[in-house]
């Protein structure tokens, strides 16, 4: 009787426990009784050990092992567990991945970025490998590898990004809203920049950058370049043409100011050449005076308008104000200065053309005359000293 009661109590306790504990934990507990052993490895030496605490803390901690390891039905189980198919649950991500540049990646496509499958935490968790501040490092695991980049014909951009204004914002300032890799490229469905659907496809770039830089994008779209892109001109510049894609500098920085006039000049060749003739350029090239006028200081950077537009800073009506930004006291006469004058062009700038011609003729004639004079003098002096022996004062200096 007593023994029967004891057995009955045990069964009851077991039943209560059995019913109150979550099913998954029971299943995990079964698996973890073996796989919870630290350092457990299969015959090939691969770790088949699971850290129970970390797994329970992970986003998948409430699942049973068999939910993912679908060919494990009981014990003993098959020697080789099937490759886990994440798409069973994550169908959208999987379909994006399947159409992406990573579709053929040899590594497990999910784990390369998300890490240890038993320790995956939500992307809002700073521990997550896809937490915004951790993404550059996660992508960099492959994309900072020069050999890999070369093998796949990719630019090795990780270093450029890390030194950029976005990279600094992420790595140094921990700014969550700063652009990381996925902000521009997307995450699962990353497409090549040659694919018209890609956010990094040339004509999509203003929209991509404009997700964050809304105000600048509005100015750009209103400007002559934005309109040209919208009208289908593939040569009109988009954000990355001036700012680059990865090595983006702070636009007010000396470095950016020093290197960016040739960028405008790569299309506006004649304007760069005439700019080079001016004091603005001479000052700029020698450094130190980074604040001297660069293209965008007069023309604006994003809402560039033709001079004929009344809102353009280089419209005649606005010149005093525009030049006056640097030249205090600029007046109507002062702004007749031509920042792109071409003294080599008689038709456009006749006065300057003839002044330059006169100066060049003066220079050439004076130098030619005296060069002949000096050379003859040298020859004669030499002869006088060698032949005539100190005649004509040769011996007296």
């Amino acid at each position, binding site marked *: 009787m007593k023994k029967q009661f004891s057995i009955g109590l045990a069964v009851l306790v077991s039943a209560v426990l059995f019913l109150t504990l979550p099913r998954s934990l029971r299943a995990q507990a079964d698996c973890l009784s073996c796989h919870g052993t630290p350092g457990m490895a299969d015959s090939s030496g691969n770790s088949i050990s699971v850290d129970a605490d970390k797994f329970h803390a992970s986003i998948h901690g409430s699942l049973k092992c068999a939910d993912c390891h679908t060919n494990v039905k009981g014990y003993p189980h098959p020697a080789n567990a099937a490759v886990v198919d994440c798409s069973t649950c994550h169908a959208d991500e999987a379909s994006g991945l399947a159409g992406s540049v990573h579709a053929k990646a040899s590594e497990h496509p999910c784990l390369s970025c998300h890490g240890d499958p038993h320790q995956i935490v939500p992307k809002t968790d700073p521990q997550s490998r896809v937490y915004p501040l951790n993404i550059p490092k996660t992508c960099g695991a492959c994309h900072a590898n020069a050999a890999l980049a070369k093998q796949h014909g990719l630019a090795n951009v990780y270093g450029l990004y890390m030194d950029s204004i976005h990279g600094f914002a992420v790595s140094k300032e921990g700014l969550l809203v700063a652009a990381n890799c996925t902000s521009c490229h997307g995450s699962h469905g990353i497409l090549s920049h040659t694919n018209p659907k890609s956010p990094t496809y040339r004509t999509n770039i203003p929209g991509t950058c404009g997700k964050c830089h809304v105000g600048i994008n509005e100015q750009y779209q209103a400007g002559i370049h934005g309109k040209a892109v919208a009208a289908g001109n593939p040569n009109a510049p988009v954000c990355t043409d001036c700012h680059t894609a990865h090595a983006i500098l702070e636009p007010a920085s000396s470095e950016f100011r020093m290197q960016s006039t040739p960028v405008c000049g790569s299309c506006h060749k004649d304007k760069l050449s005439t700019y080079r003739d001016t004091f603005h350029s*001479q000052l700029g090239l*020698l*450094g130190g005076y980074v604040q001297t006028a660069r293209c965008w200081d007069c023309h604006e950077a994003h809402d560039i308008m033709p001079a004929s537009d009344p809102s353009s800073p280089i419209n005649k009506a606005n010149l005093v104000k525009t030049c006056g930004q640097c030249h205090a006291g600029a007046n109507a006469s*002062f702004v007749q200065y*031509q920042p792109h004058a071409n003294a080599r062009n008689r038709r456009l700038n006749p006065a300057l053309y003839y002044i330059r011609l006169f*100066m060049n003729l003066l220079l050439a004639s004076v130098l030619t005359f005296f*060069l002949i004079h000096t050379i003859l003098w040298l020859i*004669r002096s030499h002869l006088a000293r060698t032949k005539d022996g100190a005649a004509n004062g040769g011996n*007296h200096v």
Partner: protein
Amino acid sequence: MSDATEAVQAPEQGEAASVAAPVPARPERWFLRFTLAQRYLHAVLFTTFLVLAATGLMLRFSGSAWAIRTAALLGGFGAILFFHKFCALLLTLAFLIHVRDIAARGLFKREKGIFWGPTSMVANWKDAKDLFHHFRWFLGLGPKPKFERYAYWEKFDYWAVFWGMVVIGFSGYAMWFAPFFARFMPGWALNAVLIIHSEEGLLAILFIFAIHFVNTHLRPDSFPMDMVIFTGRESEEEFKNRRPREYERMMAEGRSATRITDAPPKWLINFSRVVGFTAILIGLTLLVLALSAYFVG
């Protein structure tokens, strides 16, 4: 090597400290050619000119690698412009002092020979003849002309610098104070002044470093340097041979006593050599850089 240079070198070679000792047979007489004020003027002129030339060339050829590297070394454009403007002010001051001096001597003290005559800097008919005769001598077709106090190429040097300072100075200040000058100059003139400043500056640089250096210092009769602008003195032999007409006139007028002076002290000769050779070396370096930037790019 000349008599004069030998004479001043002699004390260095000899044991004795006495200057007159080595050539007792013919005691050397020395004549003053340039006053201390004139020598100072030339010193200010060439030191500021070297700095203006160096900094100006960096601007003119701001695209060339040497200009960018040197400018960076000196502290970028800010430093370049500071040195350029600083020396421009000094040179302007020297120029104004000179003009004031000439005006005072010529107009108020009524000193003879400032604006006309054999000792004037103003060109005359003899200069035209000297130029012609000099060319004739170059070709071996006649005797060497007898030069006066200032030979025609020296007058050209003087007026080239005079004109250059007016033109380069005005165009420089027009750029420096552009908004002010724009009050009474049309806007396109601001474009013109850069061209004028740049071309006239290049002409000055090429002329001084290629022509003046050779004519005055590096030609065989002066090589390696004519020290008179530093010491102010020249020996009688030198005087007689270089400017025979002036020497004859001085002797005929019996004024030689007023011009006789002591031999240049050894320290002054050594100091002048160091300064002079440094200036010539810097000038020739700038000449090479300017020409290479002009023709090579």
